[in-house]
């Protein structure tokens, strides 16, 4: 089990199947503390109520999409350091640029592999640790 297994994750995706997949992969990576939200609006309220260490979010969602959610989270100085990894089918370069400009910690295009997710999460955590 990894040293960061105590970390609290939030997985945001409107497709329950995708949330289950990401949850399953995170569990395999040793993370057990995982919550789920079905859109950006629900995720935003959950972020404010819980102390998450990491957020994995889709972009194309109803109510509040991933970009809006990301901007709303990053607008609060309290969550500037909260890493938000975008996992999405949106592969246009302008979307990727917009995500980075909005404060995303990383960007994964679906379909993806376990190795890709593991690599991104680890690199983001290492970057955070180095900045601390």
């Amino acid at each position, binding site marked *: 089990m990894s040293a960061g297994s105590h970390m609290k994750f939030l997985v945001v*995706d409107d*497709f*329950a*199947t*995708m949330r*289950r*997949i990401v949850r*399953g*992969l995170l569990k*395999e990576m040793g993370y057990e503390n995982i919550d789920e939200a079905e859109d950006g609006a629900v995720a935003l309220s959950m972020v404010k109520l819980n102390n998450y260490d990491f957020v994995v979010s889709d972009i*194309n969602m109803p109510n509040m999409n991933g970009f809006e959610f990301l901007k709303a989270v990053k607008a609060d100085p309290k969550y500037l350091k909260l890493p938000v990894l975008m996992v999405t*089918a949106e592969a246009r370069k302008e979307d990727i640029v917009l995500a980075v400009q909005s404060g995303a910690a990383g960007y994964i295009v*679906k*379909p*993806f*592999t*376990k190795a890709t997710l593991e690599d991104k999460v680890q690199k983001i955590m290492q970057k955070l640790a180095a900045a601390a």
Partner: protein
Amino acid sequence: MRIEELPVANAAASPEVFQRLGEITRQLHDTLNQLGVMPKLRNSAQGLPDARSRLSYIARKSGEAADKVLTSVEHAKREQTELASAARSMLAALSADARSSAAGLAAIDFVTQLEASTGRIDAHLTDIMLAQDFHDLTGQVVAKVVTLAMDLEDSLVGLLVQAAPGDSAGAQDSGLRGPVIDAAAGSDVAANQSEVDDLLASFGF
């Protein structure tokens, strides 16, 4: 150029433009009627809700299938983890005194292979789990096509209302209907095997 940026003179000419547009619309209407296109358009418009239902049915069924697979994978992974743990425990217990006999060595060899297999099976199960993301990807495409079909349907219905008011000829039967997409939508379909059996029983089967 945006419409508000057009010169005022153009705005003053708009009654003529609208009159000309009306004439073109009338010509289009007459031409469509002369060519016998309206019945085909009507059939297309009436067929679109069915097409949308079928697409939604595909999305729902593929989602249910993906969920079933994920549930089975999760169960299998749990059992597989227990099996791997048991194999490691047995290997540790056997190693001490089993090496003195051929049977003991065979048992060690078997458990070693078993432990290695559990690792490979776990990787396969992860691949199966990840492959279920097809539901998310295809679901997004289906949702877009359904939206397009709705827009097209609205446009066609609008055109029909303008071009053929009061014409309410029914749609032609398109033959076999395929799987039941929305059982609640009509009483002319059997929602499940139980209803099929009841129907058969009423015929003496």
